[in-house]
């Protein structure tokens, strides 16, 4: 049997790792990079491009290049997050048949799972090339706040890529697993993950080789891209002040500015000052204009300090949720490229009173952990065990629009919980069970996973029938919800996890469509 790869499917970059000879190895792609941009494009001549190739032509082909599609996966088209994304992204987003978001590239409509599948297929190809053998199984990571629909859409992406997804695990948990290898005594770990598009903080405990999540918090719209955007806005203002030219509506200029901003940000992680030099950024009556300016670390820190402060508020909340104090934390693990910024490191080490661990590259921690979990599953390793948890609370809607929680978030799986509900009208013969996921007390603010009706309840005065609603999550994270009328024994149930945004036929269709479109290897 082939080996199980671990894939960190990131908002901006993806990374793949495998356990080889008992040790986790991050696999470089053909270009030698250990991470690949999570980007996909269809070039002007109709070629499909992925990763670095897609990124390189993104400037000139902005409309047909997808980035940050992880922000869209498994979300409903009308959700505020998605509407925000439509505003921000240069590519076209339309509504899919299931109310999901679809992306239009060169007049072809792609589902988000399909885009993610293309990126995953690329990671699979990188691993196969490195290992010299076919790969068919993977563990894929997702942010801790991903709900079941988003997780399922990610699983579908794996299927489209020709991978059997053994587990979807949380990114912070994976990061902790990386550091948990070989650890014996009890340790508390804080994982601070500031990636391209999202921020997560988790507190985990590692004891006797068991990893347990104590608390998680975060912000889904906060990350390195916000740093870039702040820099871009700053440059735009400066340029307008100096040259009297507004570049805000110039797509090409914007893409160049974005790239320059990202580069300047990275430079300022080691330098105090850097130069931004973009010749021929624009034209006007007086001829070609060039952008040339200096950016200091001080200016950058002034631009982003409120973003960093915002992350630290989540850190405080998360530590409080875990029932610990900052000084109880034994290790601080930084994840995500944005944590290379000195200001972030200063803020984190200041809060916890200790410098962060530096063992593993922050870009590679998560993929490494995913590979370790994959290996743990199939090798029967008895030294380490991951106790996975439900990321969000699960429950049902009650008649008054409230959310009745049956399984609290951060509950270890597998788990079974049940509650008795009853009717509110005399001789009510049917109840509708709406299965929701989320943390709001108001049902409509939570994410609907599925619904079903239990009917043929024998006639009885209100409040008399006993309807036993049970939530059952197995070790694979599959949620089964059943409702049983205790008196008549009649039962209805649904398996929630089978409802992604794509049907099984659609997935098969995509898989067969994309053969023959094999992507070219990296240059």
């Amino acid at each position, binding site marked *: 049997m082939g080996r199980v790869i671990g894939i960190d499917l990131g908002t901006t970059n993806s990374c793949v790792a495998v356990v080889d000879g008992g040790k986790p190895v991050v696999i470089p792609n053909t270009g030698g990079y250990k991470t690949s941009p999570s980007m996909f494009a269809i070039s002007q001549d109709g070629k499909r491009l992925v990763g670095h190739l897609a990124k390189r032509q993104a400037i000139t082909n902005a409309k047909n290049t997808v980035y940050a599609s992880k922000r869209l996966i498994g979300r409903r088209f009308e959700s505020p997050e998605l509407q925000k994304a439509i505003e921000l992204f240069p590519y076209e987003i339309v509504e899919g048949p299931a109310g999901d978001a679809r992306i239009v590239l060169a007049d072809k409509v792609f589902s988000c799972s399909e885009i993610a599948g293309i990126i995953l297929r690329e990671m699979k190809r990188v691993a196969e090339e490195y290992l010299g053998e076919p790969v068919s199984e993977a563990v894929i990571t997702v942010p801790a706040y991903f709900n079941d629909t988003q997780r399922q859409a990610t699983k579908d992406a794996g299927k489209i890529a020709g991978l059997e997804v053994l587990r979807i695990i949380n990114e912070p948990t994976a990061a902790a697993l990386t550091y948990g290898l070989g650890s014996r005594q009890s340790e508390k770990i804080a994982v601070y993950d500031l990636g391209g598009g999202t921020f997560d903080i988790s507190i985990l405990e590692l004891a006797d080789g068991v990893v347990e999540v104590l608390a998680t918090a975060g912000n889904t719209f906060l990350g390195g891209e916000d740093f870039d955007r702040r820099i871009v806005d700053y440059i735009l203002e400066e340029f307008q002040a100096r040259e009297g030219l507004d570049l805000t509506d110039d797509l090409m200029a914007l893409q160049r500015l974005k790239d320059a901003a990202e580069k300047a940000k990275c430079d300022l992680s080691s330098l105090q000052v850097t130069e931004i030099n973009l010749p021929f950024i624009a034209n006007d009556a007086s001829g070609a204009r060039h952008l040339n300016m200096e950016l200091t670390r001080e200016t950058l820190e002034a631009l982003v300090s409120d973003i960093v402060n915002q992350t630290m508020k989540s850190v405080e909340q998360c530590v409080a949720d875990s029932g610990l104090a900052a000084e109880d934390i034994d290790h601080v693990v930084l994840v995500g490229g944005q944590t290379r910024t000195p200001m972030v490191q200063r803020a984190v080490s200041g809060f916890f009173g200790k410098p962060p661990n530096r063992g593993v590259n922050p870009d590679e921690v998560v993929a490494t952990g995913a590979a370790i979990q994959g290996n743990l599953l199939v090798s029967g390793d008895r030294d380490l065990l991951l106790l996975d948890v439900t990321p969000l609370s699960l429950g049902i809607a009650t008649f008054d629009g409230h959310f009745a929680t049956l399984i609290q978030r951060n509950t270890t799986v597998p788990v079974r919980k049940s509650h008795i509900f*009853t009717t*509110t009208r005399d001789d009510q013969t049917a*109840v509708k069970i709406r299965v929701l996921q989320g943390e709001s007390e*108001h049902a409509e603010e939570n994410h609907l996973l599925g619904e079903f009706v239990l009917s043929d309840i024998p006639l009885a005065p209100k409040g008399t029938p006993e309807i036993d609603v049970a939530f059952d999550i197995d070790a694979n994270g599959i949620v089964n919800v059943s409702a049983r009328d205790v008196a008549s024994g009649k039962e209805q149930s649904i398996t929630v996890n089978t409802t992604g945004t794509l049907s099984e036929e659609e997935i098969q269709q995509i898989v067969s469509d994309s053969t023959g479109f094999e992507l070219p290897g990296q240059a």
Partner: protein
Amino acid sequence: MHSNDGASDQRERIPRLAPGWEPQDVALTPVEGFLLSRMDGRTSWLALRQIGGVSPEQVDQFLERWVEAGAIEFVLKQAASPGGKAPAAPPPAIDPSLELPEELQQRILDYEARLDGSYHELLGVDRGADNEAIKRAYFALSKQFHPDRYFRKNIGPFGARLERLFKKMIEAYELLSDPATRSELERSMDAVPPDEAGTYRDTQRRREVIGAQEPAPPGGYRKPTPMENLARLRRRFRIPKKLVAERQFKARQLFQAAQVSAHQDRWIEASASMRLAIAFDPWNPEYKDGFGKIQAQVHGLRARALLDQAENAGSRVDAMRMLEEALGYRPMDPETNTRAARLALELGELDRAREYAETLVEIEPKVALHHVLLSRALRRSGRTVEAQQALDRAASIDPQAPEVKAERLKSSQRFRRR
């Protein structure tokens, strides 16, 4: 202390009423009636010992007696699960063909046998163990029994077993690692016999009721009521909510049982259930209200039974006592008062006879007989003028009534004798 190994097999079984045996044919105490009403053909002897209200010793005592009397029989195992949800597990056996060391299979089976024990036993920790020790125990057990340990291994029926074990372990860990629920559990261990303490045989039984909520299409959000706010505060401050909820759930079950019994005119059972419901959840006005209504019915029944008994009583004195007791339940019942008045006259207890007759006149002034009874009591006490007035009232209501005529005759004879 209660476990008697010979009987423990029997206690796994599910008792039900033997066909043809009518509980109405025998006199049962309310406690027995209550226990009888719990036997629904689905609840095992063991579970009956758990339901509260009747002590486990009493349950054993009653059930053993009823088995002997042929009043109950045992349900066959298969019939125990109507939904076919939990078919009888195949006999646990070590299977060497599985990808699971036999020694480990044995350990899983051994552990499974402990699932019925207390949460402390489940994690293998002592009472008073601190959070750290509890967590260590839970982690150590997880490493042995977590289903991920056996991912893709051919472990046959042990797969389902492990999931069940693990879910139960999580439950124990959750309850014991919360100081509030742990201390409540330990307190409950002091309050009940040791082998009942901290024991919940079945997750299913640990359900709570979230009030009268209908899972229905979403309604609008409304401002939470004070009760809901209180519930939320309780959740937030972690008052031993699991136990409160458990008691409320039990109370609800009992309340519903009471309603069912009442519906079937089994008022004494209903009353026993309702009384217990109030004991479990004393602040629920619904229960108190329900209890009042049921009590009225129960009193009626008692009074009726006493009237019947009085009819066949060995002596008139006994009969009088029964009628008086019946009047305690239904002081304004005309029939009871009439019989009591007649009997009191027969016994020569004239003051009491007059009292009953006065009550009768008060309840139903338009009935001639009532005035006749009063007249008779007054006449025999020597209060002839008042007696004559009462008799006149009777005559004005119905002069042709035989009782009136007879009384008139008696009264005139007396005058003549004088």
